[in-house]
């Protein structure tokens, strides 16, 4: 981000992503983002509980439209996200490299893996109901079938130790089936998260489906975990003790689901547990032969 000789640097302002817009934090606070060697990279917005509240309102508002899209259309939109990300490959690679200290080649590998992960989840969009739903055998004059439905608004605490691949691996499964989410990005690596938000804002994903907050997970997460309008909380990015507290807050408010999957390398095959964790099953008894 150093200035070329003779030219004044054009510095970027990293803001939050709420309801399709990029506001500063309602609190007006920022924090310094540093590279892997401790050098100054940028200031990022430090979200407050009120930003989290606004983000939940935006996510709830977007839920109706997004969940009513056809699964096929959601797949197309997610694939479009991968396309736009691919176009920003170098920018992502440079942000990941500066943040983590990976080599150029390793950073590019991480970006490619993240793009491939979007494509992988995009492919799942119109296959979830075949895999998770079905016609059930019943002893009576009924057609009995089950269909998976998105549970609603999710609070996703992105992993602290991954700059991009981990983030993508927790966001995509939260929205592929029609859910919407509020993401709290890694405190150490917020810049790739905001760049991802810029990609989402320009790739046909309706505003509010993904809302990106940067800041301290311990400050924001308890408000999300106790929020009565959040249906699921993924505690991946919370340290062990905090994750316990969040699970208690989730149970003590509206019995929201808590996604707490065993840690695995983000490069490994993701499996379906995370994606299916955001689903509810609706079973319908339909009379026949009357």
């Amino acid at each position, binding site marked *: 981000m150093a200035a070329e000789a003779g030219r004044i640097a054009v510095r970027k302002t990293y803001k939050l992503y709420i309801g399709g817009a990029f506001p500063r934090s309602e609190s007006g606070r920022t924090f310094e983002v540093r590279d892997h060697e401790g050098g100054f990279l940028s200031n990022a917005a430090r979200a407050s509980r009120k930003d989290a509240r606004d983000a*939940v309102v935006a996510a*709830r508002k977007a839920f109706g439209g997004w969940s009513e899209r056809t699964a096929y259309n959601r797949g197309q939109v997610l694939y479009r996200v991968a396309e736009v990300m691919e176009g920003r490959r170098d920018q992502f690679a440079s942000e990941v490299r500066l943040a983590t200290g990976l080599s150029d080649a390793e950073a590019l590998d991480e970006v490619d893996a993240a793009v491939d992960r979007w494509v992988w989840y995009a492919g799942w969009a119109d296959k979830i109901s075949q895999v998770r739903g079905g016609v059930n055998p019943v002893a009576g004059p009924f057609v009995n079938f089950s269909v998976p439905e998105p549970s609603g608004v999710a609070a996703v605490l992105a992993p602290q130790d991954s700059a991009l691949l981990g983030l993508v691996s927790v966001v995509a499964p939260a929205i592929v089936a029609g859910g919407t989410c509020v993401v709290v990005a890694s405190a150490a690596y917020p810049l790739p998260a905001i760049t991802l938000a810029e990609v989402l804002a320009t790739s046909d994903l309706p505003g509010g489906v993904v809302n990106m907050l940067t800041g301290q997970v311990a400050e924001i997460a308890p408000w999300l975990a*106790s*929020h009565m*309008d959040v249906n699921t909380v993924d505690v991946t990015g919370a340290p062990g003790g905090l994750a316990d507290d969040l699970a208690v807050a989730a149970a003590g408010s509206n019995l929201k689901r808590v996604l707490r999957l065993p840690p695995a390398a983000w490069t490994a095959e993701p499996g379906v547990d995370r994606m299916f964790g955001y689903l509810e099953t609706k079973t319908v008894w339909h009379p026949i032969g009357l």
Partner: protein
Amino acid sequence: MDVTSSDSALRRFLHGLPAVDEAGARDRAQALAGRSVKSDAKRTALDLAISMVDLTTLEGQDTPGKVRSLCAKARRPGHGAPPAAAVCVYPDLVPLCVEAVAGSPVRVASVATAFPSGRAPLDVKLADVKSAVAAGADEIDMVIDRGAFLSGRYLCVSEEITAVKSACGEARLKVILETGELGTLDAARRASWLAMVSGADFIKTSTGKVSPAATLPVTLVMLEAVRDFSAAGERRVGVKAAGGIRTAKDAVRYLVLVNETAGEEWLDPRYFRIGASSLLNDLLMQRVRMETGRYSGPDYMTVD
């Protein structure tokens, strides 16, 4: 204040009012909107705002069932909140509301005078008012003839308000200025004074059918008008902000504006009202948040 004796006297009076500093009004409104209201003060403000809400439904699709549930909500908003000030409906639904709010402090307000456009002959407008009052409305929300006002026929507007006021009898008269159609804050100030000298008990910003509806600067100008009217030794006129106020935060901003402009005497449902429908749920959600320490959601509020 006898300035309504002739068209020229009225014109001289209204055009003699000091001009509004638009930039100053906007600045003042914005500065007051930035006031921070926290904890106990916020709790008080939320309850006060709830007690000032004119719970409104003015849709062609209104049904008796919907209006009955609105009345029930006004009487008991739930979550321990005080009742709303009034329900505001079209005239044909007044008898239903009177029955539904009987025995509670909730008033029944009815729009009249060919709401929202106000484009009907005077005798039709008066008949509209009389039938609403006869049906039991406690308050009448009339619209002024904006066409006449904007073309400078002030006496015509004034006489109409006076006629409606006398048709109201015991009912309180709210005069809707529809500031979104008046264009400037100067016009809003003139319309405020015109309504007050003609007998209004309340001046109201808008019908809610025109954008922009209530804004902080225009409400500021109207509050200044009622304050100055009262300071001139006349009666105390109320202000109603209606349209576009959807969040608890907005509502609290209006209360700050009232307190700092007109004064504490106006922080009373008799002198300040907020016309709204979706606002009430947001106020209740904030109230629940303060009581339980966690954010509530629309799943826990009634669907209106």
